[in-house]
C-alpha cells in the first residue's frame, strides 16, 4: 500500500483515530502518514470543539429567500412593464476526475494484441524450424563458420594464458579431444589428405606434447591429474579402433594411427606415474 492510498482511506473513515486494520501496518512503517493521521485527528477534534459562529439572524433568512421560488411578475397589458427574457445560464458540468488505473491494468486492456503477437511469433518460430530441417538442400548459399577453427583458436589463447603445467595439460587434453571429434565426423566424408592431416596433428598433441607437460608436474600433481588423461586417451584409442573397422579406405589408416597415438600417450603418462611412485 502506498501513502496516497493510505491517506485517502484515512480521509474516508468517520473517526480518523480509529485506524482500519489494513492501514495499521503501513502507518507503523511510515512516519509521514503517522503525522498525517495525527493532523487529521487534531482537525476532527477542533471541528467538534468549535461551536457555530454567531450571526445577526437575518443572513439565514436572506439565504433561504434566494433559493425560494421566484415571485411571479404578471405584466398587465398597458402597464408599461417590460419583461426581459431570462438569459440562458451557462451550465458548467464538473466531472470528477477518472480514477487512476495502475499501469498493469492499462496494459492488460491490450491483451488481444498480445495474443495476436504471440501467435505471429509462434508461427515465425515454427516456420523457421521447418526451414532449418531442409538445410541440406542446394538452396543454402551461406557457408557457416567453422566450429573446429574456433576451437583451435580457443586452444591457442587458452594455452598462452595457462598459468602452469597442469592448466597447459588440460588445454592439450581438450585440443586432442577436439581433433578426435573432428576426425570422427570427417572419416566418413573426407577420407584421404584431411584425415592424414588430423592424425598427424593428433599425434603431436597427445603422443608428444601432453607427455612433455606431464613431465613438469610434481608427484602430487601427477597423482591428481594423470589418471584422468590416461582414461581419456584409453577411450579415444578404443573409439578410433572401432571407427577404423567401419571407415572408408582413405580413413582406415589415419584412424589406426590415431589409436596408436592415443595408446602411446596413455602408456607414456602411465609410466610417468609409476616412476613418480617408485
Amino acid at each position, binding site marked *: 500500500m502506498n501513502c496516497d492510498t493510505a491517506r485517502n482511506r484515512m480521509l474516508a473513515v468517520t473517526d480518523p483515530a480509529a485506524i482500519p486494520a489494513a492501514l495499521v501496518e503501513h502507518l507503523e512503517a511510515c512516519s509521514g502518514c503517522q503525522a498525517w493521521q495525527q493532523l487529521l485527528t487534531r482537525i476532527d477534534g477542533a471541528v467538534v470543539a468549535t461551536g457555530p459562529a454567531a450571526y445577526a439572524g437575518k443572513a439565514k433568512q436572506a439565504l433561504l429567500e434566494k433559493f425560494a421560488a421566484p415571485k411571479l411578475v404578471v405584466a398587465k397589458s398597458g402597464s408599461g412593464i417590460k419583461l426581459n427574457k431570462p438569459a440562458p445560464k451557462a451550465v458548467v458540468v464538473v466531472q470528477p476526475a477518472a480514477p487512476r488505473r495502475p499501469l498493469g491494468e492499462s496494459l492488460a486492456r491490450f491483451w488481444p494484441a498480445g495474443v495476436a503477437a504471440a501467435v505471429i511469433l509462434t508461427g515465425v518460430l*515454427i516456420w523457421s524450424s521447418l526451414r532449418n530441417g531442409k538445410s*541440406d538442400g542446394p538452396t543454402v548459399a551461406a557457408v557457416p563458420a567453422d566450429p573446429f577453427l574456433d576451437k583451435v583458436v580457443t586452444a*591457442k589463447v587458452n594455452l598462452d594464458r595457462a598459468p602452469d603445467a597442469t592448466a597447459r595439460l588440460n588445454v592439450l587434453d581438450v585440443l586432442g579431444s577436439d581433433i578426435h571429434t573432428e576426425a570422427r565426423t570427417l572419416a566418413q*566424408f*573426407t577420407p584421404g589428405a584431411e584425415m592424414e592431416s588430423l592424425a598427424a596433428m593428433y599425434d603431436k598433441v597427445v603422443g608428444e606434447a601432453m607427455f612433455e607437460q606431464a613431465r613438469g608436474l610434481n608427484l602430487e600433481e601427477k597423482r591428481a591429474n594423470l589418471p584422468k588423461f590416461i582414461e581419456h586417451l584409453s577411450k579415444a584409442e578404443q573409439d578410433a579402433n572401432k571407427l577404423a573397422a567401419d571407415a572408408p579406405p582413405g580413413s582406415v589408416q589415419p584412424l589406426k594411427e590415431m589409436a596408436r597415438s592415443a595408446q602411446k600417450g596413455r602408456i607414456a603418462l602411465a609410466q610417468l606415474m609409476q616412476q613418480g611412485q617408485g
Partner: protein
Amino acid sequence: MFRHTLSTVVVVFLVAVVGAQGPRTISGQQQGDLYKKNRLVIEEIVDRTLESSRKPNDYVERANTYYKVVYKFNLEINQARQANDNARIEELSKHLGTLLDNGLAPTLVKARGQVEGGTGVEAYIKVRNDLLAQLDALLGMLGDNPAAKASLDGAKKRLNEIRTPE
C-alpha cells in the same frame, strides 16, 4: 485472472519453443569442406600452440609464435579477398582479433615484464615490431573491408599501447 493465466501459458510456451531450438548445426559434408578450406591455418595454429607449450617461461618466444600465425592469416585473407569471399574475410579477421587481443596482448605484457631491467630487450623489440609490421601489411590489404579493418585496427591499437621497455 483468465488474462494473467493466459499470458503465463503463452510465455511458458514461447520459452519452451525458443529453448528447444538449439544451436544451428552443420552437416558432416559441410564440416569436411570447411576443414579442407581452413586446413593450413588450423595446422599452423596447432603447431604454434605446441611450440608455445614447449617454452612456458620464455614469453618473448611465445609472443613470437604469433608471427607465423599472423602471416598465415595474411595469406588466407588475401586469397579470400581475391575470391571476393567477404564472409571468410570477416570470419578470419574475427579469429585473428581474438588471437591478438586474448592471446598475444597478455603474452606481450608478460614478455615486457620478463625483459625489463634485464637482457632480451632487443629481442622483445624485434618480435613486437615484426608483429606490428605484419599487422600493418594486413590492414593495408583490408582497405576495402571496413568491418574487418576496424576490428583489427582496434587490436593493433591495443598492442601499440603495450610500451617498449626503456
